[in-house]
């Protein structure tokens, strides 16, 4: 097998999805033998504009400089894969996009707002350049990386798993928090991938893996109304980590 050349780039984020690599433990050494890491600053590899087979992108676009950087990275990358909520949908920091006047926010946090240079929005990578594959999750798991790289090493395009959290939850036989406790669980409309962690802990899913395919968010929101939740609470529920996604817009 030919060694794939990979790069890991960071934009606006918490660095948590890069940990899907750095938290692999001893498997990280094995991965570094199977692929050639060309650029991954946190791990000590710096060659930002070298040509690579796969560029993994963490983080969202929040400055004019980011816009230029992602275009340059796209130009030298055969395949571009987003890792995590920030890169795939703008992330939790995209909550500022809906604010009445996020420009004023700078003034309330910083004494001299003019020193701070940001765009009005936090946006997904796909809003700026073509994306070949998206790994959802806040955070993504090491398993997602291993599965993707494993498939590509064998020359196979990975399958996009769009199953819902409910499916993995039922298979694991966790007690349904929506049915048994009346909690506003987002499992019916959220992508699987976390292993139904929150239901396993007896709590309702808050949707950190983002919208699943063909999800009926409005139907679920209506159910929450039936359970007695106030509209603001329901709106906040859907508008947290993937607030830019219109398939989760509910009224």
């Amino acid at each position: 097998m030919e060694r794939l050349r990979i790069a890991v780039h960071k934009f606006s984020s918490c660095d948590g999805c890069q940990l899907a690599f750095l938290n692999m433990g001893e498997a990280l050494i094995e991965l570094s033998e199977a692929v050639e890491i060309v650029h991954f600053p946190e791990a000590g590899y710096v060659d930002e504009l070298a040509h690579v087979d796969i560029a993994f992108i963490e983080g969202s676009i929040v400055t004019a400089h980011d816009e230029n950087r992602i275009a340059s990275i796209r130009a030298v990358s055969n395949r571009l894969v987003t890792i995590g909520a920030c890169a795939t949908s703008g992330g939790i920091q995209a909550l500022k996009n809906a604010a009445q006047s996020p420009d004023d926010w700078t003034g309330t946090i910083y004494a001299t707002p003019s020193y701070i240079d940001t765009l009005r929005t936090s946006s997904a990578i796909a809003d700026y350049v073509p994306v070949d594959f998206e790994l959802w999750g806040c955070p993504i798991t090491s398993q997602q990386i291993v599965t993707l790289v494993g498939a590509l090493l064998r020359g196979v395009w990975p399958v996009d798993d769009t199953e819902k959290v409910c499916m993995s939850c039922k298979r694991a036989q966790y007690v349904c928090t929506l049915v048994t406790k009346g909690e506003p669980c987002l499992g019916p409309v959220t992508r699987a991938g976390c292993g139904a962690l929150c239901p396993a802990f007896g709590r309702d899913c808050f949707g950190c893996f983002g919208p699943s395919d063909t999800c009926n968010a409005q139907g679920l929101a209506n159910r929450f109304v039936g359970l007695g939740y106030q509209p603001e609470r329901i709106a906040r529920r859907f508008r947290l980590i993937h607030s830019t996604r219109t398939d989760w817009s509910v009224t």
Partner: protein
Amino acid sequence: MSKRRVDLSVPILARVEGEGALDLIIQDGNIETLRLRIYEPPRFFEKFLEGRHVSEVPDMVARICGICPVAYQVSAVNAFESLFSVEPDPWVQQMRRLLYCGEWIESHALHVHMLALPDFLGYASGIAMAKDYPDQVRRGLKLQSLGNEIMRLLGGRSVHPIGVKIGGFHRAPDRLSISKLLAKLEAALPEAEAMLAWLNQLPVTGPAQTFTSVALVYPEGAIEQGVLHSTQGHRLLAEQFTEHVEEFQSPYSTALWSHLDQQPYLVGPLARLNLIKQHGEGSDYLLDMLSRNPRFPSQTLFDSMLARGIEICFALHESIQILKRYCQPCSPSVAWKVVPGTGYGWSEAPRGLLWHQYEVDEQGHITFARIVPPTSQNQARIEQDLHESLLAFGLDQTDEALQKHCEQVIRNYDPCISCATHFLTLNIKRR
């Protein structure tokens, strides 16, 4: 000394968490400009927390930092519980400490082996170092994995764990998981101690510097709670923090700077161990380890790596003790009711003190949030250190040597620039 003029721009400083830059201008053999520049654009967490219910905060603030999410969760629940006069029961306190120990082990083992050690042993990365030090790097990664495993026990995953809530935890772990993990940790403690012995004999030295250490102090060793002490004699509660710590903005950094009574100060592992040594308060295991190590208390910043090594052993030992005493609780959390007002909370993140303040209304919604992360607090100290270190190192060294030395000094603080609000680009100019 030569009066050469050199303009040097190195695009990215590696092995730090986040993005920043360092500008260095040397004029006629003097440092004219030295700026640690954190240019990660702000993510405005403090603003979009407004309007959210207090119960949503632990999951939200976790996302400030992928490397120390537990620190954010614990400082936040500490703030709310103090405001709501909720006393978490001993089980909750022990489990919070255990979860936090996991984060210390994970974060410290990552920093020591993948980020810092390559500097001291002359490699570009931990992975490159693994070719010559395979056993040591594998041992480090194994310890990091164990830290993650502790976090998974109580939080389901190590990045943005989902177990913590105000009043306690969503779920108590089962006995089988406890006994399996305990066996693994007991087997790993001798390995961690061997790692510490190895770190202890590495030829890591540097000049002593004058600085104030700031850390929480707690009888068993401060992690998830404590009272703030400084080597200047400060003794503060969380609500008194802003009486002595002032945040200010510089034109070149998106992270706010902090001074303690108008002076830079140090937070983090070295500061913690210095204060434990000064006060003699900590677990017997920790005090015993420190009494056998003549390097502490230390004013030598490069001893921070050894301090992390000691804290890995301490956190591992502490985790074992907690797991040995484990009893299944009646409930994994205590009930609470919203009390409006202002809550203050803090804890010792792997890289130092993390302080939170929240204003909460009658319905339990956040009306104001303020968060002071460790890297902002260390920012002024790092610049001061760079000044002193560069003068001691010699400004007539080559650009390459100067850059390497600056990077090493900065990385030694384990700066978490993602937290502070992120990569270092180093620009050296000589005129």
